[in-house]
Structures are given as structure tokens and as C-alpha cells.
């Protein structure tokens, strides 16, 4: 079996060796609790605050505006629920979109079943939201708009600078889930009040993320306890994780331009290569996209078996097919962009990372037509017949 190829970087990424090296001391030598008075504790505190300052500087915000969490799921929950709870039972209206990550969607759903109201905006067939849709959805009692910066499934970028600007005019809090964009694309943080990110999508460790909280944004904590993170998120800081996130951010800052250029070229090549296979479609936007995500559908075959066949060939990818999901429903994102259900079952997401090589892409494009043909031979639906 040739070397395995990992093309599922929007699920998670390998920890970069620089990141791992930076984290290691905080497990077994500088292991203090950052709240402790003694030297061990002070050492951990210094590491946490330096990490916070580094991430803040990269993002162009103040260190005290960065709240570390257990990941982006928590950051998204904190943004949506924390903003709502801070309203002291006044209720109100939230605007979000049909293609958000479930960490946002399920938080919005929860609000909608607990006395709040919610509008989920539709997207066009490429996954884009028009700022005018947001404008039209806003009401007197709208207190929060949450729109992701870029889709984790199809890669489409959203016009968050424009959406943020029109929220700002009206004093509405604007949150963006920037998990897939942080460290890869420029984020217009000046237009945003709350922003979520996660380390493991950027060659950092799993289980650590942050929520940027613009000064003066009212937010109730979800985690109650010792008052860590200025009372906004209690719980002993994940010191190695936080140090790792900062190291991953530093790495992204130094190599972002060249990595992004490379990933963009890979994406262009994938689009071209897959278009040459009959009965395929791109799910997403040809150009207004995150550099590392490309999502396709293949007529006549089912995505889970496609992913398994590629796995047999040593290539790791993912799918939004119903058969791969625990509730046997196709991805809400593919349905929202109007992919016909038969095609939504045959989706394949390919996502690259800093470690991806041109050979990896060539291997995939070499194997893919054969695997697709094999599965189509098994299928009752013959493509092009």
C-alpha cells in the first residue's frame, strides 16, 4: 500500500511539529495551574497570557478580548447563547443562516424553542448570502446576527464585512464562526463583535479554541465556577492547548501567504480534474471560496461508499451523504444550496492542508475516475446512458 494521503483537513489537521514542541514542556515540567501563586503557577500564567497576546496581535484585537474555550463548539455556543442570556429574559430575535455549523444552528434552535425568535437565511446555489437578505431580515428586536465566515462543507465565503457593517449601524451584535478561515484568509475583524476559532483546524491541538469578544459586548458566561477568563469562561486553563494554539497561529502568520497560494492552486486543479469526469458537479462557489475546501457530487453513486473506496486506496476524504450521518439525512448544507437529493447522496469533500503535496493531488485525480467508474458499474443508475 502506498503512503496514506490525508485530504480531510477541514475535519481536523495534523499538529505541526513546531506546535508540538512548543506544547510539550507544559505537560510535564511547566505543569502548574495558571491560577496558582507559586512559581509553577506563574510560569503557566505567563504562558497563557503570552499566547493570548500573540493570538490577539495576529487577529488585530486586544488581548483581553480573547476568551479561551474548549474549542469552537463551545465558542459558538457561548456567542449565541451567552448573548441571548445577557438580555435578562427580554427575548428577542436572532438572524442566522441555513448553512451554519451545528454548533451555531442547534444553539439558535434552542433559543427558538425557549422564548426567542429566529430567522434562518437561505443561501443561493453557491452557498452565498446577500447582505440585503440580512438587512431585510432585521427587526427592531433583533439583537444578534450569526453568519459564518466560510463554510466547512463547501468552502463558500460569506460577505461578513458588509453584514458586520449593517449590524454595527443598528447596534446589533454580529458573530461569525471563522473556524475554517482563521489563519488562512484575511478576516475583517473590525466589522465583527464575536468571532469563533479552533486550534485543531490550523495544525494545533484538539480541544482548544477561542471566542473573540469585542470590548463592551454583553455576554453571559455558560461555564460557571472559579471565574477564569475574566469571568467569561470558568475552568482551569488548558495551558498546553493554549500554548499550542498560539504556536499554530504564529506558524500560520509566517507561512500563510505561501500556503494559501499553494492550496488555491490545488483547488483549481481539483476543480478542473473532477470536471473532466462525466456526471459531476461542484458544490460551492468556483472562486469565492476558502482555499482548502472543494466539494463535489458524483451522479449514480453514494458518498459513503466513495469515501470507503478511496480509503482502500489510502486516501482520506469525507462526504455529506445521508448514509454517512447518524440520522441518515444528507448534509443540511447541500440541501440548502439546492443540490438535488440524488446528487447530495454522492458528495465528496476534499480538503487540503499545509502538508498536502502536488503528488497527493495527482494521486487523487489519478485514482478518482477509476473508483467512480467501479462504483457506477455496481449502480443501477448508469451515467451518460
Amino acid at each position, binding site marked *: 500500500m502506498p503512503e496514506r494521503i490525508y485530504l480531510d483537513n477541514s475535519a481536523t489537521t495534523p499538529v505541526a511539529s513546531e506546535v508540538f514542541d512548543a506544547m510539550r514542556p507544559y505537560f510535564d515540567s511547566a505543569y502548574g495551574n495558571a491560577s496558582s501563586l507559586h512559581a509553577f503557577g506563574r510560569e503557566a500564567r505567563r504562558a497563557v497570557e503570552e499566547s493570548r497576546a500573540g493570538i490577539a496581535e495576529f487577529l488585530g484585537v486586544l488581548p483581553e478580548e480573547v476568551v479561551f474555550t474548549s474549542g469552537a463548539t463551545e465558542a459558538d455556543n457561548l456567542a449565541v447563547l451567552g448573548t441571548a442570556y445577557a438580555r435578562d429574559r427580554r427575548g428577542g430575535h436572532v438572524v442566522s443562516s*441555513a448553512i451554519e455549523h451545528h454548533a451555531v444552528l442547534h444553539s439558535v434552535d434552542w433559543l427558538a424553542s425557549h422564548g426567542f425568535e429566529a430567522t*434562518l437565511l437561505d443561501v443561493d446555489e453557491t452557498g452565498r448570502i446577500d447582505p440585503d437578505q440580512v438587512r431585510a431580515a432585521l427587526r427592531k428586536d433583533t439583537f444578534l446576527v450569526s453568519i459564518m465566515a466560510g463554510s466547512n462543507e463547501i468552502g463558500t465565503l460569506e460577505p461578513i464585512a458588509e453584514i458586520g457593517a449593517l449590524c454595527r449601524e443598528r447596534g446589533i451584535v454580529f458573530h461569525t464562526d471563522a473556524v475554517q478561515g482563521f489563519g488562512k484568509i484575511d478576516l475583517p475583524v473590525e466589522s465583527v463583535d464575536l468571532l469563533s476559532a479552533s486550534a485543531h483546524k490550523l495544525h494545533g491541538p484538539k480541544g482548544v479554541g477561542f471566542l473573540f469578544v469585542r470590548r463592551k459586548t454583553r455576554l453571559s458566561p455558560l461555564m460557571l465556577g472559579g471565574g477564569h477568563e475574566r469571568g467569561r469562561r470558568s475552568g482551569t486553563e488548558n495551558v498546553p492547548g493554549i500554548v499550542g494554539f498560539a504556536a499554530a497561529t504564529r506558524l500560520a502568520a509566517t507561512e500563510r501567504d505561501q500556503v494559501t497560494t499553494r492550496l488555491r492552486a490545488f483547488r483549481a486543479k481539483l476543480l478542473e480534474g473532477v470536471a473532466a469526469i462525466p456526471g459531476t458537479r461542484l458544490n460551492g462557489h468556483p472562486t469565492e471560496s476558502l482555499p482548502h475546501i472543494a466539494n463535489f457530487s458524483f451522479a*449514480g*453513486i*453514494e458518498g*459513503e*461508499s466513495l469515501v*470507503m473506496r478511496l480509503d*482502500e486506496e489510502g486516501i482520506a476524504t469525507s462526504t455529506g*451523504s*445521508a*448514509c*454517512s450521518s*447518524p*440520522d*441518515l*439525512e*444528507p448534509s443540511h448544507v447541500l*440541501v*440548502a444550496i439546492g443540490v438535488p*437529493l*440524488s446528487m447530495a*447522496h454522492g458528495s465528496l469533500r476534499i480538503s487540503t492542508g499545509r502538508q498536502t503535496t502536488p503528488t497527493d493531488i495527482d494521486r487523487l485525480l489519478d485514482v478518482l475516475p477509476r473508483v467512480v467508474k467501479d462504483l457506477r*458499474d*455496481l*449502480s*443501477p*443508475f448508469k451515467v451518460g446512458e
Partner: protein
Amino acid sequence: MYTEKVIEHFRHPHNMGRLAEYSAIGKVGNIVCGDVMWLYIRVGKDDRGRDVIADISWETFGCTAAIATSSMVSDLAKGKTLAEAIAITNQDVAQELGGLPPVKMHCSALAADALNEAIYTYLSEQGQEIPDALRRRHERIEKEVAALDKRYKAFLDRETRKAAPPETGESKCS
């Protein structure tokens, strides 16, 4: 999540494709649910003059488990008398594969159903008597198809966000 046996059948499926000559097809599943199986049988006689499945093949649109169960059910049924083939259940198929993950049990049901439907179609077309068990399964399968169509509509309605959330307890793709 899958057993070695499942992966083995998925990797090298048996009896796939469309028979050049066949006596009947059993078509089950629904493209909307993401699984469709067409099963072809050619019925012949054994040396005692009984109807047997002389040849069998299938075409399946579905997941790893759906492909593996298609392959397995075709192995189990090949050469069997119709009476023996009718008795093959989805549990038999799953068991022969060393088990299936719970959410994938419906894929084995699909395979057993396809065989059932192929035999039902054959006997009906021949004007032969239909055993009770076969008829009952056929009626259940028909009912499920109708339920799927209904669920499909509910799903589309929900996706356009015009309808209330689906009734609880509604069956998923079978």
C-alpha cells in the same frame, strides 16, 4: 465500524451487474433515501424439477453495507430453491457478514427485501401460487415504499422551512 467480512465483500463484491437473461427483477429502495437495489434472478429447475435460483445478480446504489449485503444475499440465494430463498432473512444476511452497525441494519433489510420482491414478481408473472409469508412481506414492503414517499415530501417541506417539524417517531429511510 464494519467487520472484515463486510469490507471484503465491499472490496470484491460477488455477482454484481445485470444478468444478460433474467426471469425477474426485484426493485427496492428510494434514491431520495440514498439506497436503491435492483436484484435480478434467473430461475431454472434442479434435477428434482423444483424451481431454483440458477443465477442471480444485482445493481446497488448505496453505502458500503448496502453493497456488502447485496453481495452476500446473492451468495446465499444462488442455487437455492425458491422456497429456501424466500426463507432468507435480513438477520441471516447480517449474521453471515459478522454483523452490521445498528444504523446499517436497514441495508441488510433492503437486500432481503429485494430478493423477496424478485421472487414475488417471478411467481406472479408465472401465475404460480404465492406463499403467504412472501405475500405478507411484499405487502409490508409496498407499505414502506408509500411511507417513504410521504416522508420524502415531509423532508422537502421541512427543507423549504414551510412546514412544522416532522412528526416524531416517523420512520427514517428503512
